[in-house]
């Protein structure tokens, strides 16, 4: 008579169920991990300085130094 071991995860295909559950969990983790990325680098000239920094605001040493 063939003996069937219910505690053997290979015979009961338990290992496959574990793999599927692990996959579902790790897939979510993987996608969240994939979402984390470096900031987008744009090639090209640097942006021009803001207007108030160049015209409106006085130079630092014009009045503060006295």
């Amino acid at each position, binding site marked *: 008579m063939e003996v069937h071991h219910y505690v053997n995860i290979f015979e009961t295909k338990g290992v496959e169920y574990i*793999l599927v559950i692990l996959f579902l969990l790790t897939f979510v983790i993987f996608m969240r991990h*994939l979402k984390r*990325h470096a900031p*987008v680098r744009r090639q090209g000239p640097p942006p021009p300085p803001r207007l108030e920094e160049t015209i409106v605001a006085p130079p630092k040493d014009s009045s503060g130094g006295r």
Partner: protein
Amino acid sequence: MSTAVTTETMPRRSWKEFILDQLRPRGPIFTPFNVISAPVILAGMVLVVIRFWKGIGAVTNLNQSYPWGLWIGFDVMTGVAFAGGAYVLTAAVYVLHAEKYHPIIRATVLNGLLSYMFYAGALMLDLGRPWHIVNPIIGNRFGYNSILFLVAWHFLLYMTSEFLEFSPAIAEWLWLPKLRRFLGMLTLPTVIFGVTLSCLHQSGLGALFLFNRNKLHPLWYTEFLPVLFLVSSVFAGLSMVIFEGSITHRVFRAQLDPKKHHDFDDIILGLARGAAATMYVYLFFKLLVFVHGKHWHYLGTKWGWWWLVEIVGFVAVPLAIYTHGYQARRIGAIRLAAALTLVGIILNRMNVCFIAFNWKSPVTYVPAVAEVVITLMVVFLEIWAFRWIVHRLPVLREPPAWAREG
């Protein structure tokens, strides 16, 4: 005169002038690519004549043990997987409204259409009696239950679908506004029909091997082959879009709107993310099938090592590079991952088709030089056709103003 201007001014000229203008070569003739590809195409054409003159045995090493060789393994199995980008992207753009990918949709559909036309067309070379190819269509002695019957009909219908999806560009090229409007209305239903067909025949190609349980090595044979073929066609197609798109973006740079050059990097990143996610699923499926089949004892053999080369070297490693490339925003790494993935797909399809096929048999199969030359001829012809069309039709450049307004 630029090609864009040619399209805009077309109605003012006669059809004869238009045709003569379109036949005029664009760009230099003696480029390195042309110098390499032209002799290969000529040699391939001579070999094709010999194949039809003297029979398939005159140019191939195929035998009774290996009826399917390089032409089926590469041209049909791999070519169709590489064309998978068309159904994935059309579904994303037209059904899911992922408009980000719209700038590359025409080039992708054109690449898919040409892949089917040339690679599946190369099937004619492999058939012992090529004139029998019409049998599934005209109902002459075919089996309704045959997977080849399904694949034959699907190839025909899908090629028609892809032609319809691409046809608005042809209508714009020929300056036919009414036809363009009508074809535009057909796009969405055609895309839905095409995606359905693709899912079925991509998996159908895997199903062709289901009755080879005793011939295909257990590490590759599984009853889930159709699922594996379908899932792998998704990332194979996306990788092909990245690879082909990177080349066309460089070669046809003048046709693209300079303001949209940065958008292309964003598109590549999005495609890389999709490819990485699908490869993760594929890797899990392979692991599950491996555990399900209890194939541990094969790992120590030379076949086990070869299987590991395919799975680790050309699935796990590209997956890691895709992930790193996406996270670090490194387009170069993503291109490398795409190239490795494409090699992996070629390897997988060839393993299933003839390398791991008849693995116990003392008879072996190594493709003949003529088979390789004819395969290269098919690839080069497809690239020539793609280039000819992109130079003339609004594939990468903006459509004419009347089409955009309509």
